């Protein structure tokens, strides 16, 4: 059964500007981790706030755990206030209460329990997030990573059915980020908590989430597994936002889609004669050096384990290719391009 | 008790309780334990001795509310016929005139009061009576000024006094009364001329009679206009203070005088006591106490002035009824504004 259901939810902040959330419909299964991915201003944080109850929609319906928590229509407005929705939130700035110890912070939502039960639960949850002996500390005495764990612990302590995370890792340094991602995922899985988290970092979304929703200006462009999003983007926006992409013009013929660098299978069964753009990701494109090659290396970016090459084509178009750094090619080398593409994604040429 | 609503409620109840306790203390009981007179007074110095003497003599308690005159008016008006006040005492005849005009004071038929207080120091309709008198006259520095150069208030407009005069601001009630009586005496155009003369001499404006006297002594100016009792008090502290009063207008209309005084309120609850009170205050005994403690002139001519005051010599007063101070006060204020007397 779906834990979270949004139906045609719309939210407008300015009457004469486009809505922040535009007729969004979404269903999240129990135990699922969903990532909302999108550029800033795409409405992802607004969606979280709508679910939590800090904003109310102008239109549409939200149901949590089978219960209607908010419905907006032309005449009626029904809403359950945030404190009754049993939704946990981890904020971007953690929002740890500075005047309370870690224990007191974590205990904050546990007023329904007896004192003994509360103590037990705090111990349990602090152990879960790996902060067992830090209960007496104050938030400002902790490192960033520790603070985030406290925020997580606090949100999870009342065992909410749903956890919302708003760019939870953006305040951490890069190496810590990866570690925390794993931690958080571990905790979520072990508690079976359904989670929605908002991020603009695609790698983050792909690593943790079961499904990813890509948002653009309040609209859900695509919702699916990370591989699907990456390899089968539904729209050009998704293609460009998630991972790098180049688009090569091509024409559909009876043999396939003819492009400058070769012919691709017409997987999407487009009509012959149609003009399309073929999406190519850097990891789709390889090359071999050859003095009669059609392509030429224009630029080389060393990225550690791999190197990104920008290749120029006779027509003037460019594609990128990502190669392991063990084999190094210099700028100006002529190359033959090879695209052993398994997924062929095309979009109509505008 | 947990929610802030409860806390706020508690706090509100607490405040309410405090307020209630304070208010309940003031609910008038059926009968008063002792006889009393409730006094609203705009004058709050030099009268305790006289009040105590009254209580000792008659057993009547005096409950006083001190305040600014203008505010006391408003309170009396707002309280209407429920006011606890029996007597209103205030300074400056203009205020008394105003109170009578507003219907706050009622006429008193008392031969004793009429006998003790000279006619020009009380209301022609017997609604108020002056109790102490003060003169507002020219004060000068004995080391710098020859008294032969001084004569009248108008003469201060003479160019020889340019830059040598200290005055109170025009907003000061006693100045306004001075101008008001001048208007009654000489008419507005002449008074305007006189004040223009003062202003032309670029007087230094200092907002305190005592400060004016100190300024004269220090040499910031040579002459000034102040009330007599301030000088008397300074002399009482330092007998060698180099400032002396000059009775203005002795050859003409007489020096301007003003009073502090009182009357019985229209809705007085203890009318008989109030009249007794006023009569006592006008008696030679009480008048002597006023003269001795506050160093003013007693309104009752039978009482003796303090030696310091006596040393200044006999005073010819302007015998125009002091009510003129009130009659023309508004006009005086406007006049001052018109001629630029700040």
């Amino acid at each position, binding site marked *: 059964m779906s834990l979270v259901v949004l139906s045609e939810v719309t939210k407008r902040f300015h009457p004469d500007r486009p809505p922040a959330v535009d007729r969004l419909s979404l269903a999240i299964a129990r135990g699922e981790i969903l990532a909302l991915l999108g550029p800033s201003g795409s409405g992802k944080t607004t969606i979280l706030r709508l679910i939590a109850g800090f904003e109310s929609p102008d239109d549409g319906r939200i149901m949590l755990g089978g219960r209607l928590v908010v419905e907006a229509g032309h005449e009626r407005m029904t809403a359950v*206030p945030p404190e009754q929705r049993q939704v946990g939130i981890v904020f971007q700035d953690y929002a740890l209460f500075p005047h309370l110890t870690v224990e007191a912070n974590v205990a904050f939502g546990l007023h329904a329990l007896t004192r003994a039960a509360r103590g037990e639960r705090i111990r349990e949850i602090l152990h879960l997030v790996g902060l067992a002996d830090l209960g007496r500390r104050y938030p400002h005495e902790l490192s960033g990573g520790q603070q985030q764990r406290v925020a997580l612990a606090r949100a999870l302590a009342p065992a909410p059915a749903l956890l919302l995370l708003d760019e939870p890792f953006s305040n951490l340094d890069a190496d810590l980020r990866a570690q925390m991602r794993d931690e958080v995922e571990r905790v979520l899985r072990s508690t079976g908590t359904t989670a929605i988290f908002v991020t603009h970092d695609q790698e983050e979304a792909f690593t943790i989430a079961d499904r990813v929703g890509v948002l653009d200006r309040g609209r859900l462009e695509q919702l699916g597994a990370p591989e699907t999003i990456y390899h089968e983007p539904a729209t050009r926006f998704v293609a460009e936002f998630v991972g790098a992409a180049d688009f090569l013009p091509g024409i559909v013929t009876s043999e396939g889609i003819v492009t400058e660098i070769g012919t691709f299978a017409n997987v999407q069964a487009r009509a012959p004669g149609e003009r399309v753009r073929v999406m190519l990701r850097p990891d789709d494109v390889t090359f071999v050096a050859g003095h009669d090659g059609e392509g030429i290396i224009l630029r080389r970016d060393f990225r550690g384990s791999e190197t990104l090459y920008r290749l120029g084509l006779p027509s003037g178009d460019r594609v990128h290719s990502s190669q392991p750094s063990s084999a190094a090619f210099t700028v100006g080398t002529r190359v033959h391009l090879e695209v052993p593409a398994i997924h062929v994604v095309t979009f109509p040429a505008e | 008790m947990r929610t802030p609503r409860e806390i706020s409620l508690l706090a509100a109840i607490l405040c309410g309780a405090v307020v209630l306790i304070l208010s309940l203390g003031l609910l008038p009981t059926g009968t008063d334990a002792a006889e009393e007179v409730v006094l609203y007074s705009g004058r709050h110095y030099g009268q305790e001795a006289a009040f105590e003497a009254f209580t000792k003599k008659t057993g009547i308690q005096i409950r006083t509310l001190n305040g600014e005159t203008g505010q006391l008016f408003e309170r009396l008006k707002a309280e209407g016929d429920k006011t*606890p006040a029996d007597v209103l005492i205030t300074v400056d005849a203009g205020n008394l005139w105003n109170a009578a005009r507003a219907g706050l004071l009622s006429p008193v038929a008392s031969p004793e009061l009429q006998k003790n207080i000279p006619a020009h120091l009380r209301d022609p309709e017997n609604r108020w009576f002056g109790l102490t008198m003060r003169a507002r006259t020219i004060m000068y520095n004995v080391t710098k000024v020859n008294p032969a150069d001084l004569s009248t208030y108008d003469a201060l407009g003479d160019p020889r006094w340019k830059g040598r005069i200290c005055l109170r601001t025009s907003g000061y*009630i006693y100045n306004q009364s001075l101008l008001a009586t001048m208007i009654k005496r000489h008419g507005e155009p002449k008074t305007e001329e006189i004040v223009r003369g003062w202003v032309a001499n670029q007087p230094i404006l200092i907002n305190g009679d005592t400060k004016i006297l100190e300024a004269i002594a220090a040499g910031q100016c040579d002459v000034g206009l102040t009330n007599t009792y301030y000088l008397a008090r300074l002399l009482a502290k330092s007998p060698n203070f180099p400032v002396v009063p000059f009775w203005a207008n002795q050859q003409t209309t007489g020096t301007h005088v003003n009073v502090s005084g009182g009357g019985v309120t229209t809705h007085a609850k203890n009318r008989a006591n109030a009249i007794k009170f006023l009569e006592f205050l006008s008696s030679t005994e009480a008048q002597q106490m006023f003269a001795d403690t506050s160093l003013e002139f007693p309104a009752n001519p039978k009482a003796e002035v303090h030696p310091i005051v006596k040393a200044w010599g006999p005073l010819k007063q302007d015998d125009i009824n002091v009510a003129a101070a009130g009659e023309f006060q508004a006009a005086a204020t406007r006049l001052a504004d018109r001629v630029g007397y700040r």
Partner: protein
Amino acid sequence: MLIASATGKPIVARLSPWTLAAWGIAAFVGIPLLAVLASWRDPAVDVWAHLWRTQLAELTMNTLLLVAGVGAGTLTLGAGLGWLVVAYRFPGRALFEWALILPLAVPAYVIGFAFLGLFDFAGPVQSALRQWFGDAARLPELRSGPGVALMMTLVFYPYVYLLARTAFREQGLATLETARSLGRSRLRAFFAVVLPMARPSLVAGASLAMMEALADFGTVSIFGYRTLTEAVYRVWNGMFDRMAATQLASLLLAFALVLLLLERALRGRRRFTQSQRRGPGVDPVPLRGWPAAAASVVCGLVLVLAFVLPIGQLLLWAADVIRSWRLSPDFVAWLGATFLLAGAAAVMICVLGLTVAYARRLHPSPSVRFAAQCSSMGYALPGAVIAVGVLAPIAWLDGVLGVVAEWALGRRLGLLLTGSACAVLFAYAVRFLTIGFQTLDASLGRIPSSFDEAARSLGVSVGGTLRRIHLPLMRGSVLTAFILVWVEVMKELPATLLLRPLGMKTLAIEVWERTSESMWADAAIPALAIVAVGFFPLFLASRLTSDAWRR
């Protein structure tokens, strides 16, 4: 915020007890303001014509200049001193930090009078100068516009100082470090980052100071400086025209409105943004040599001018009478009355102010914002005008109650409300609500909204959030607000004078009775008592606000 309904039934939206409370409070304190405006139903045309011809332009200009001068002066002095004691270490800093608030303990006109007494032509300083340097030696005339503005700046800067210091301290390491890491020196970081972030507090403090300057009568009267407020009294007492005076007072309301609009514009529309690392606070930098000496000298000079000198003068006066003075039961009664009124008013105003501030946080709708601003207007009105504005409705209510009581009990009662503490407390609320509100509102604004949301998401209601999150974090502010109101009420004169119960006298009234007859020696002891009573709370406020929410 929508009212709960888990069953899904339709509800009326947008109305909450907090909003109603805010409107209620605004209406309550607005009554005397309405009374002031109501005076226009019978315009005193001739008085206005006269004023227009003779002095209205000058009065308005004078008032404008004074208010602007005081605003600029207190901002500079208060913010400057606040930053000095927070960000740097120099000799005497620990003392100055709390001592610079002390001028609040002394009534403004007392400071003014003492100052004048010392520096006037006839005073000791100029007399000494004349002795040493001959008759030509003079100081610039203090009884002038700049003189009054300077005086009031010295008297009112603590409002800005107090709020600024709290704001600067609470900004924390993060803000300053961020700016520093971007390559700015400490000083430039101050101007570029810290100052703008402290804007709400600074503007709140400055607007308090400016409204005080607007409503002041005592000091401008002593200095002979003609402002609108002075004209109000002049018309009232000189022309016997209370209606015209009240109409003139409505001009003050207009000024106050402009001030409030200005303040709103300057505060900025940002609610609050701050990273979570609001940690141990700004680390003070030790100064050495010239800068250290300069810092100490500046602080010392301000303290001497604004506090030590006036108190010294009072002590000198007191010395004259100390031998014959006795602790009478009357004195104890005055002390008690002062405490009682000040305490009751402070509690009441903190509760009301918190309600309005919190309502505004929950529902920043235009109507609630307007209500908040209405409740702040009373500060700009002279106490006497408020007192009269309170008198009329209370007297009316008394009349109504009298009729009801007579019908119910069959006997006539005297005055119930008029001349009871009710009336005085009402006037205090009208006059001083803004102090409580501004202080609490500025502090509330420093709490990020994510805290509210975190608490709500953890199942805590709106009221519970206030109690468990906001109030603990605002402890210093609540106490500061309490103490500021306490001190103000202790010093308050005109409203207390008019509205107090028969037989109740406060220390301030005793001081006034003596000084209105230039009997300064007799006034000195009760004046010093006022200072003493305010001294310790101010000291406490200072210590407590220096450690915002850490143990």
